[in-house]
């Protein structure tokens, strides 16, 4: 892959990491805060269903994961397995798509 593509991937990796730093913090703090009062699943759903703000937040979270994880796996596949080239990148694109699908599905159930 060309130096330009590698550079774009690096920038995407850094940008998604910045998004994840915020997302993960908000996510964990929310979980800890939510369960402290002993909320039930039904009560959580009552708060999340129809909330556009939370829907947008978690969709951004999922997209950042789908960008970040495959780029991070790329050097792991190269350095540990010696796997390079088009087949590796295709597998990573599919892995990213799988993350979007699984994440979006979960988000839509909780917020839809």
């Amino acid at each position, binding site marked *: 892959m*060309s130096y330009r593509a*590698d*550079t774009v991937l*690096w*920038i995407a990796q850094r940008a998604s990491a910045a998004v994840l730093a915020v997302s993960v913090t908000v996510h964990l703090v929310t979980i800890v805060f939510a369960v402290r009062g002993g909320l039930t699943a039904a009560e959580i759903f009552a708060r999340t269903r129809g909330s556009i703000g939370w829907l947008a937040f978690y969709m951004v979270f999922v997209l950042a994961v789908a960008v970040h994880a495959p780029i991070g796996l790329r*050097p792991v596949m190269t350095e540990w397995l010696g796997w390079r080239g088009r087949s590796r990148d295709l597998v990573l694109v599919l892995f990213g798509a799988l993350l979007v699908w699984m994440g979006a599905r979960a988000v839509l159930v909780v917020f839809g």
Partner: protein
Amino acid sequence: MMLKVHVWRGGAEGGLQTFEVPRYPSQTVLDVVTHIQRKLDPTLAYRYACRVGMCGSCAMTVNGVPRWTCRTHVDKVARADRLEIRPLRNLPVIRDLVTDMRMFFDKWERAGGHFEATSTKTDDFARVAPDSAERQAIDAGIECIGCGVCYAACDVVSWNPDYLGPAALNRAWTLVADSRDGNDKRLQAVAGDAGCHSCHTHLSCTERCPKHISPTAGIAGLKRAVAKAAMEGKL
């Protein structure tokens, strides 16, 4: 008192040979290797020149760590009066403790590791203030003498043989940061899978550099410079 020294013999294939070497105060690892070659086995191949940490030719792997043997006291590294001395990692072994460093220096060239002037001798002097941010950034990396210790310490080189390595990238950084240099292809040469983007920031090079340079910091500088150029459409 005697020191038990296990020394690599052979090329890529080979094994450790054990020698008994007398201990004395302030003895360096290079003294030990020299004793073996002069008194015990004249066929031992090793490389050195200045003996005082200026030339960078005597680097070897001592008890698993790449070091200048001339500046490494036996007292500091021997464990239970035992030393294991091997050639530098990540470089082809020619014989015994001598490595082929051509690839190491070829990578400096591939990284655009030479100065390309933008002015001629008829132009006025370029003025770069010693306390300017530019000069300070360059000064932090300029004292490299090309010993190959960082290259041997780098795990990324061992995983990806095309990776330019800490020394070449550090050299490229000192030139990228230099306003007098005009090589606009250097950032392309140091970007990507074989370049700065493969660095995992393990800091092994920084930990081992005998000159206390941080190639990791230089590589981070290259990542920033490459990203900036890409976003400005200049890469």
